């Protein structure tokens, strides 16, 4: 079966001004990856390893210097309706109500008002925010705001949902609730999810496969299959297998961080 999403040898260098000159900073150095239909893939890596850049290249918000991204075999050149992004910073518009935020993507697509309202209301209910349709983002907690972000992504009915550390700005308890909710939504909708996180625990708990990236310039150092049973709930964390995978992922991540700091030290 051909992959849903294929990332082929992506390279990207950013430029930074420095003393009347510019320096190139390689961010991604040959990243290749494939994700199957309906798969949940987590990506972890040290800060600055280019995880977020990779996500933006997959969405088409940033163009790679080399390599390409394929969705169902078609090359990605710009954001498209088959992909939706959930941002760490939620990405809501403070001047729009919950309902109008969720409708926003459909509004941009030119979906008629009545139809987009129906879709938005259904998805607001699905993420458990029924009754908050007319609230504004500043009236909601961080966890609720991110659920608005889910509802907005789901309203677009994408095939792939790209999530950029979606839970890192909410508190610990809320985070676990959101994780469970996301897993439920995922199994109910069968979407393909590309999930970036800096939490190893979260990566292992959520995913079918954990992709570990090494420090700058970012590249994939290991892919770990997570053979924990589904459906998962908080109890999975108590299983010995969970601990083993978690420890293994940490060993690899640590090695990547140490290598990069040695590199920096030599430089």
């Amino acid at each position, binding site marked *: 079966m051909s992959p849903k999403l294929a990332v082929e040898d992506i390279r990207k260098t950013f430029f930074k001004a420095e003393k009347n000159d510019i320096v190139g900073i390689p961010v991604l150095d040959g990243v290749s990856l494939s994700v199957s239909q309906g798969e949940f893939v987590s990506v972890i890596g040290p800060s600055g390893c280019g995880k977020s850049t990779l996500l933006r290249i997959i*969405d088409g*918000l940033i163009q790679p210097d080399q390599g390409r991204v394929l969705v169902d075999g078609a090359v990605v050149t*710009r*954001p*498209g*309706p088959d992909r*939706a*992004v959930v*941002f760490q*910073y939620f*990405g*809501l*518009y*403070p*001047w729009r109500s919950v309902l109008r935020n969720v409708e*926003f*993507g459909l*509004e*941009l*697509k030119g979906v008629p008002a009545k139809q987009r309202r129906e879709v938005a209301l259904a998805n607001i209910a699905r993420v458990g925010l029924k009754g908050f349709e007319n609230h*504004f*983002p*500043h009236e909601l907690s961080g966890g609720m705001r991110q659920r608005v972000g889910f509802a907005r992504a789901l309203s*677009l009915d994408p095939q792939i949902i790209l999530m950029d550390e979606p839970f890192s700005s909410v508190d610990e308890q809320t985070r676990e609730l959101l994780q469970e909710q996301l897993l439920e939504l995922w199994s109910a909708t069968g979407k393909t999810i590309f999930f970036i996180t800096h939490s190893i625990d979260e990566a292992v708990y959520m995913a079918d496969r954990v992709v570990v990236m090494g420090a700058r310039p970012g590249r994939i150092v290991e892919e770990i299959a997570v053979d924990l049973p589904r459906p998962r709930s908080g109890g999975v964390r108590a299983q010995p297998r969970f601990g083993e995978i978690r420890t293994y992922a940490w060993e690899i991540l640590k090695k990547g961080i140490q290598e990069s700091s040695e590199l920096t030290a030599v430089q």
Partner: protein
Amino acid sequence: MTAIDDNPLQAERARIRRAKIDRLLIVAVTLVGFLTLWEIAGRLSNPLFFAPVSDVLREFWLGLLDPRARLLKGFLETLAVLVPGFAIASVLGVALGVLMGRSNIGYQILDPYVTIFYNTPRVALIPLLLLWIGVGDLLKIVIVVLAAIFPVSVNTMVGVRDVSAQFTEPARAMNATEGQLLWKVILPATFPFIVAGLKLGLGRALTTVIVAEFFVSVSGLGGILHATSSSYQMAKMFAPVIILAAMGILIDGFLTYQERSVLRRYRS
């Protein structure tokens, strides 16, 4: 110990109520004091140079009742310049600001001229414009536009440049066109800056319309101001001043209200 002290909620309510009454009292006492001083000063001074507040209010009232409706006519004449002038300045100012904020080429081309215009007293251009356009309402409207447009455009530009990627990125990820990005993201995000620019522009427009009515062709409230002061009718002179002040306060109040009701959401 009183009953109120036993109930902290009631004590707090009473405290807030007292503070409110105190505030009103301070305003009232100051106002009465100010009006009394004005009255005394007016009665003591030469009527050619100043008038007591009672005469001012009486003349204002008579002006409102005036069968020839000179005050009303003047007010409408002033509005006929101010409204189109300020409207044109607002629309063009926002458009100019967006152009300079969104496009680097637009910025590089326009910025030097906007800077020069913004820092030139626009009144200095009146003689030149007089030659070009001739005496009339059109000239006055042009002068008002020139006075009000730059604060609006400079504020809008700053606001547009300030729009966070956290607003533009989600829209781009949802495939927004450039037009959608402008109307649905950039402009709403810039709204607080635009309102601040409009308030500044309004102040300038009000000042300038009066100056234009003094110098270009005597009409409107500025014309009445000019006529009454040059014939030393001090009490009458205050009527247009009162109307101008009321206009300024009302429009500014309206903009401030809009600003607040929206800003509440922007803070989070």
